[in-house]
Structures are given as C-alpha cells and as structure tokens.
C-alpha cells in the first residue's frame, strides 16, 4: 500500500505559463514512454520477480515513477493554469481544450490517450527486465528532447532531474538483470 507525503520529490515552481511547452511535456504524463506507463509496468511486473533484490527494485522504482507522474502533472498544471481558450488554441491545445479545459489528462504529445498497450508484463523475467532497460532509455531520450524544446530554467531544471533519474533506474535494472542471469547461470540460451 501507499501513504501520501504532501510534497514533491523535487521542487517545481514555474512562474510563467507556457501552454506550448505543456503540450510537449504532457507526453511524459500519458505518452508511450511516460511516467504512468513506467509505474504501471514495474508495479505489475514486480509480482513475478524471482529474487528479493528484483522484487524490491521493481517495487521501489515503480513507486518513484508515481512521484515522477506527480511532478510531470504539476508542471503541466503550472504551465496551463488560467490560460484562456484562445492562447491554448494558439499553442496547439485547441483540441485538448475542447475535451479537457485546463485540466491535466493522460495523453501523448500527439494527442493519443493513455493506453496499457504501451507496456508489457510478460511473466518472463529476462524479457521483462530487458523491456525495463529499454523503457528507461526511451524515457531518457524523451526528456532530452523536452530539454531541447524548453527555454525557461524553471522548466529545464526539473526536466534535468527527471532525466537523471532514468539514468539511475537503467543502472539499477542492469544490476537486477545481471543478478538474474547469474542465477540462471548454466542454462544461458537467451
């Protein structure tokens, strides 16, 4: 289970609205390599992990991804709060505004609503951990694209933090994969 801490994992305080940037960043909320997908993927896969280390790492990274989901939602909220319809439309968010006003909704940058089809929970430990490694790299690449699209330091700073975390998660999943491979040792046919 989870308890809520009334704080973010890392500070966010965006003083200037920028719906253009919100349209891009929302992809890390509900897009293919976003934080919701990440969290759901790891928290689903943890049930069939074979060792205490792999169970813990999937559980704890899945939990951290929820904190990232909250950070990304916070960024989108602060970038669009109170922005009127015509400005939303000029920023390419007219379609979004029609269905969601200034709400936060899990969707990709290109407007596709979140789907569980973005993730896999295969039940095969090697397949799942390799997917997790790729997922962290894809999230890192997305954050790098977002950092290139951003100009406000209030936006870039938390994006850099989130990018860093993907690198750390990749490292931890690599260690988890090596442990499982060593355990399977003799029968290395994958």
């Amino acid at each position, binding site marked *: 289970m989870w*308890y*809520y*801490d*009334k*704080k*973010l*994992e*890392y*500070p966010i*305080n*965006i*003083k200037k609205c920028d719906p253009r940037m919100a349209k891009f960043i929302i992809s890390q909320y509900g897009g293919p390599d976003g934080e919701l997908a990440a969290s759901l993927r790891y928290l689903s896969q943890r049930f069939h992990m074979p060792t205490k*280390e792999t169970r*813990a*790492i999937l559980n*704890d*990274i899945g939990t*951290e991804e929820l*904190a990232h989901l*909250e950070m990304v*939602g*916070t960024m989108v*909220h*602060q970038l669009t*709060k109170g922005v009127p319809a015509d400005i939303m439309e000029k920023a390419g968010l007219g379609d979004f505004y029609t269905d969601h006003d200034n709400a936060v909704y899990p969707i990709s940058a290109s407007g596709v609503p979140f789907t569980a089809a973005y993730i896999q929970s295969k039940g095969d430990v090697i397949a799942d951990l390799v997917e997790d490694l790729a997922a962290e790299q894809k999230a890192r690449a997305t954050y790098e694209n977002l950092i290139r699209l951003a100009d406000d330091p209030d936006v870039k700073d938390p994006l850099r933090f989130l990018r860093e975390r993907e690198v*750390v*998660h990749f490292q*931890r999943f690599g*260690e*988890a994969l090596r*442990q499982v491979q060593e355990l399977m040792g003799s029968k290395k046919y994958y």
Partner: protein
Amino acid sequence: MDERQKLMEQIMAYDFCMIDLGLFLDTHPADANALNDFRTCYMESEKLRKQFEEKYGPINQRFLPNPRCWQWIDDPWPWAREA
C-alpha cells in the same frame, strides 16, 4: 522563498537521498557506506519533519491530529505554484 518552503526543501533533499540510496541498497544490500548514509539521512529527515509538522501541520496523514481541527486539508498542496 519563505521559511516554510526553505524547511520543506531541506526535508525534500534528505528524503530524495533516501529514495536514491534505497534503490542502490536494493541491489547492494550489504553496502556498509550506503547503509550508513541512509541512516544519517533518515535521522536528519525525521528531525526536520518533526520541526516542520509542529509548525506547519502534517506532511503525512500518519500524524496525531489536533482534537478540534483536521489540518490535513489545509493548503498548500504540492502541485500549487508558490504564492
């Protein structure tokens, strides 16, 4: 940045270190240095949390509430822009 936010960001910094060290310890459960760092961060965070909650109200619902008022609902929530 006001006093409240300053204290909150100190707590966030220690709590973040615990998240990061926690992941490291998941795959290196016998690493004495990481364990020691985790202990230090835990103790610092606990101390500051107590200070914060006494002054500004609960960070977590696991908090002995005032018998007359449910402070949990009080602003600010973490996603709000600073005033």
